[in-house]
């Protein structure tokens, strides 16, 4: 009984503010309360004002996923194939952006590339930040799965059957790393869409991502629009989060 009460209160603690915020987004007039009627007009308003941000975020997430796969898969493979102290250090080095605040990372990028006007003002500048920030998640996720299988012997097996190094990578390494790749990919997309600190430093008035737009709407729009924005944000990010949970659990089962 006590357990049920504790559980319910914990749920209430978590859900009430969320529900209130979402409700505010579909209420005709927040100050009059729900009696003023339900409406989707604020959601449409958000769409009108911030559709660009939504598309930019989705595009950034996809581009970021592509880059982290391109860099992360070979990197994880290399680290898994050559275990040793050097690989350990490299792995820690790749993971550094996890420990460094996004703001510091952004500042470093601005110092380094700030004077390159074309690059500074383009979406690829934000992409670089996102790749730096999300790469460790991709590498670690793939590495955990690869470390759990006897990759060297599997590859030797394929080699004795006539497979060239590239064929071994394609037929053995990638399929066996797939659970890690999937978990890493979902993590990267979720993080990229939700990232604020770093993006806020790197963005320009013409390049606002979803969370930066959220901050913008909180600061400058009426409360209903800001709340509707939260609703839109939830709709995008919650399914991704759930998929990520599922994929990570699956990858971890294999890695054990």
């Amino acid at each position: 009984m006590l357990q049920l009460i504790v559980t319910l209160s914990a749920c209430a603690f978590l859900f009430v503010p969320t529900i209130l915020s979402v409700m505010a987004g579909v209420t005709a007039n927040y100050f009059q309360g729900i009696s003023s009627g339900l409406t989707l007009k604020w959601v449409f308003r958000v769409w009108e004002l911030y559709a660009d941000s939504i598309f930019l975020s989705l595009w950034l997430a996809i581009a970021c996923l592509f880059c982290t796969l391109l860099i992360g898969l070979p990197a994880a493979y290399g680290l898994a194939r050559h275990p040793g102290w050097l690989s350990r250090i490299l792995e820690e080095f790749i993971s550094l952006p996890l420990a460094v605040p996004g703001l510091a990372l952004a500042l470093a990028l601005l110092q380094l590339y700030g004077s390159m006007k074309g690059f500074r003002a383009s979406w690829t500048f934000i992409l670089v930040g996102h790749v730096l920030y999300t790469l460790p998640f991709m590498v670690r996720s793939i590495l955990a799965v690869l470390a759990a299988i006897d990759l060297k012997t599997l590859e030797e097996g394929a080699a004795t059957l006539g497979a060239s190094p590239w064929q071994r990578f394609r037929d053995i390494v990638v399929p066996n790393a797939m659970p890690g790749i999937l978990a890493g990919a979902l993590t990267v997309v979720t993080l990229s869409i939700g990232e604020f600190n770093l993006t806020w430093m790197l963005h320009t008035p013409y390049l606002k991502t979803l969370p930066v737009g959220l901050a913008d709407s909180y600061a400058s729009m009426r409360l209903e629009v800001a709340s509707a924005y939260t609703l839109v944000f939830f709709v995008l990010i919650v399914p991704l989060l759930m998929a990520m949970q599922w994929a990570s659990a699956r990858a971890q089962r294999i890695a054990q």
Partner: protein
Amino acid sequence: MTLRLTNTAKTYPDGTKALMPTDLTVETGEVVSLLGPSGCGKTTLLRIIAGLETPDTGGEIWFDDDNVTAQPVERRNVGMVFQSYALFPNMSVGANVGYGLKMQKLSKPEIDARVTQVLEMCQLEKFSHRSISALSGGQRQRVALARAIAPRPRLLLLDEPLSALDAALRETLRDELAILLRKFQITAIFVTHDQDEAMAIADRVAVMAEGRVVQSGTPEELYRNPTSAFVAGFVGNAMQLHGTHDGMLLKLSGGVLPLGRDGTGQDIFVRAEDVLIDSSGPLKGQVETVTFLGTHYRVGIGGLMPEILISIFPGQSAPRIGETVQVSIKPESLMLLPQTGRGK
């Protein structure tokens, strides 16, 4: 195919000499076993033949008239069965077996036909669509073998293929493997540390120690005429008789043993089955241990020499511990080998 290795050695970057310069010839269709304790270089030798390790410069590997020394593993067309089997977990049994054929760019119907044929030979036809994780140890071992032979390799290499199985299964599969290898009529090299396995499967056994082939011959030759204390000890567990030589006699603390020939400068070995408990025997000792092993007793006799001498006693009622027994050893069952200090 005839395999010829000349002057093949392997030194690891840290200076460890895993394999001393070795010459080895394996004739067409012959099944050769590399037998030795762990760390003797047998797996290194096998991996050099496969192309998974590069030998030191100066060594050459010939497959018939084809010098493959510089060829990478994927071009050598060897089949290999790994100790851990190395089956691909992302593929079904059929896809594992067909992978080598796919690499040879055979057509789909050809691959399917050959996979079916090989699976039938290995009694795996029911399992073609199973995933690897759904197989037992013995089934995995057969899949590994089927996968290795499906591409019709020039040479089949097996690295301790039975060591991952439990004891009961190992014996059954040992005989099965011996039959399959004869059925495929393939030149094969088989690495093991288990003398029974080597004897059961191989036409010829090469005994290795400390990076060298110390003796090579049929199982019978090795058992009956070992040329070194190491081979006598490793193949058939011969025991050294420690005593003092006196021409045709060996003086032990439990009596004097006639050798039937001059034993000067020789170490003398005997196998447990040749140590007979015999009331008219010239040696006298005390029974210290008695172990019942079903078909026979294993009796440990002390007082004959510093170490305990083991005797195989086939009779119904074994002597009891503490009893004094007479022991005889026929001169012709003694093995006289050049002295190398203390034997193993």
